[in-house]
């Protein structure tokens, strides 16, 4: 197994980084997975086209919550062009889980990325195809 539940994932699940909400915020995006009820809200403050502060909140499985925690660590200081380049491959690399053959859990892992992309594209007034993230 327990590739899926290696210590780092369980550690982030138990003690998530950047957990909470930001008020005020420039971006606040909530996404959920109706299949299992996972829910992630991602809040961002943006200064000079760069993410200056980030927080996430939500409820869900260890994979979705740990992925969100790890992703938020990456985001601080990232500029929005980088966010647009940041995709599924980068996230999976970051969390290091073998999810290629597990589409159900892949969705759990990608939930925070979906919130990030949808929120930032909305902030920029642009449309996004999220098919890849569904």
């Amino acid at each position, binding site marked *: *197994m*327990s590739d*899926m*539940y290696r210590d780092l994932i369980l550690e982030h699940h138990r003690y998530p980084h950047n957990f909470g909400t930001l008020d005020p915020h420039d971006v606040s995006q909530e996404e959920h997975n109706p*299949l*299992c*009820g996972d829910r992630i809200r991602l809040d961002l403050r943006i200064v000079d086209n760069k993410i200056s502060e980030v927080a996430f909140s939500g409820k*869900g*499985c260890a*994979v979705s919550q740990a992925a969100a925690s790890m992703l938020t660590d990456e985001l601080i200081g990232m500029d929005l062009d980088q966010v647009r380049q940041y995709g599924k491959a980068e996230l999976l690399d970051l969390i290091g889980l073998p999810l290629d053959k597990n589409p159900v859990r892949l969705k759990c892992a990608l939930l925070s990325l979906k919130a990030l992309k949808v929120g930032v594209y909305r902030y920029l007034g642009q449309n996004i195809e999220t098919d890849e993230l569904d």
Partner: protein
Amino acid sequence: MIKAPFDVATIRSQFPILQLPSERPVAFLDSASSSQKPEAVIAALADYYRTTNANVHRGVYQLSEQATFEFERARGRVALFINASHHREVIFTRNTTEAINLVAQAWGGSNLRPGDVILVSQMEHHSNIVPWQLIAQRTGAVLRAIPIDSQGRLVLDDIDTLLQGVKMLAITHQSNVLGTINPVADLARKAHAVGALVLVDGAQSVPHMPVDVQALDIDFLAFSGHKMVGPTGVGVLWGRKALLDAMPPFLGGGSMIKTVTIESSTYADVPARFEAGTPMIGEAIALGAAVTYLMDIGMANIAAYEHQLSAYLIERLDEVPEVTWYGPPVGADRGAMAAFSMTGVHPHDIAQILDSEGVAVRAGHHCTQPLHAALDVPSSVRASCYLYTNTHDIDRLVRGLSKVKQLFG
């Protein structure tokens, strides 16, 4: 100690998937979702394609006649299985969902008027809610639900009030999450007293207990082949012949007509009227084999064994203090399944860790979002048993839950 009325080891030996060579064979506890298939059913399906394959009700040649004979014989087996008064009351559909949609559209479309009430319950599967919502939107009928109590039973104190204005009571025989077995015969009597019809969702009951449509005195019964050791792609709608005779078609096409001109058509008698197009011939024949298999063991025997499994499952789950299971306590009105939560661990994580221990369970809302809203949990883990389940499978589930505690504790 469990005393099965049949030899469970022999039963297991008849299911090829339970015999696969493996270092760690699967403890399959997801039969409520779809059951495994015995050799007799797999052989019936393969034999049809190997020896009898031809379209039915069409050819004058021998193969087609043979296929038609086998297909209609399967219909007769199913009729016998549920004690239908006539084999023409058995309609082959794709599954339970399609059977319920058929009644909602064909009966509902021509009988429901604005303000008429369709009564379901809080514990229904989405397939016994959404088809009624669709026809309610089209006809102006109203959908209401019987609530459930904290033990997952229907609250029937106000049933007489709830039945006012009801034209259709559509109710599950056994909840696919709580395991609750509902008193459908009593409900049918009360519903008939106000002139309502009764459709029973038998997806979880027909595979596990004797179901006699005449004894229950209901009007429609819907169930799926793949949950009762049969193949996917075939289900059944049983309906009272007089009701079916009066219903317009559901789908149009070949087989369901008498005459067709460009302007209009006349329709075939039941069951052909509701079986448009080439049916699932091989699957229906294999369902006939599944019914024969179950009848040879005896549905009362299967129910008696599963009742003991149900008690064992709950007894073992009670040994894990972090587990909260849902539904009524062990008794005559509880089937051999348990949906549960575990403090501090998401159902997906539980199911994943169990999978890594070779235990197959389902996690999610099990197509019952209104029920999970009533239970106030977003999702749950469900372990469900069948005639081939043994206590060892349940022991492995409980051992897997210790592993979950160890990782998340």
